[in-house]
């Protein structure tokens, strides 16, 4: 259960951005979480709510985009989502594919109220 630490890191980033934007009111922060990141979205949402409640961050929402594992075929360069650990290329059948994404743990956007 390290989602509380992750939620805290997200809030630290929001705090920094808020200062950079001269105290703008941030209403939502978006994150991208890959399935290989080892972060549970529900636990993260819960931890985030707990940390935001009764602070000057309120009301701040968390938007989570969950990202599947993606592979690229070494032969035909086809890029595809991996489901159920099936890593062969669905286009040409090659078994030589490599992982090019799915371990993201990134901030993606802020929603800011116009002043």
């Amino acid at each position, binding site marked *: *259960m*390290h989602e509380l*630490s*992750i939620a805290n*890191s*997200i809030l*630290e*980033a929001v705090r920094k*951005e808020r200062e950079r934007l001269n105290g703008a009111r941030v*209403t939502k*922060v*978006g*994150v991208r979480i890959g*399935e*290989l*990141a*080892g*972060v549970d979205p529900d636990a993260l949402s819960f931890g985030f709510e707990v940390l935001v409640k009764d602070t000057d961050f309120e009301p701040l929402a968390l938007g989570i985009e969950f990202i599947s594992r993606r592979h690229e075929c070494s032969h035909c360069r086809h890029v595809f989502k991996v489901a159920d*650990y099936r*890593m062969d290329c669905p286009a040409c059948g090659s078994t030589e594919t490599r*992982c090019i994404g799915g*371990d993201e*743990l*990134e*901030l*993606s*956007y*802020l*929603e*800011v*109220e*116009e002043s």
Partner: protein
Amino acid sequence: MSRLPLEKKVLSENDRIAQRLRERFLARGLFCLNFISSPGAGKTSLLERTLERFIPSERVALLTGDIQTDNDAQRLARFGFPVKQITTGGTCHLDARMIERALEDWPLESLNTLLIENVGNLVCPSSYDLGEAAKVVVLSVAEGEDKPLKYPSIFFKSELMILNKIDLLPYVSFELAKARAHALQVHPGMEIVELSCKTGAGFDDWMKWLERRREAARAREVPVPGQHRPA
């Protein structure tokens, strides 16, 4: 209301410190490993048996993380190498700042190998880069052979999987071939070593892997100008 793009890693602060550590390690030819497993898979035993095999002049040091107690540091200190316990007081993983703080009063120049035993946990430690050259995941045959599928993150990010406690195979329903296949499904090309810390079976394979990787780190060493390193 306006939406502003923000392209930044959530753990950028941890990654920044980890990168600083990695550069320090690389400049000194210091090889650092981060050992991760569930509680009880045998990380401390693996380190004990490894230290036993090192000659006393080896320049090895250890950091060991736990939520409470310094039991592991006491076990590991018996071998005469520098050991420091990091007690996280509730946190389920080590982060780069804890490592940097623990190394503050240690002369890194005098070391060529740093072994970090993470908190026993297959999930959380996988998110935190500690500046290591590689992560090593330890799985024991007393657990399930489907662990790589259930906890893909750490198996995906580890370069080596150690299958420990193979002396117990006659007593447990654990199929080595399945465990290997599952690990390779999650992480094609992952290296795997089977061993028993109790009987020593397979231990040479692990020591060979370690030696090979330490050699490679030494070969990549970037000498710091004006600094003399002991041979």
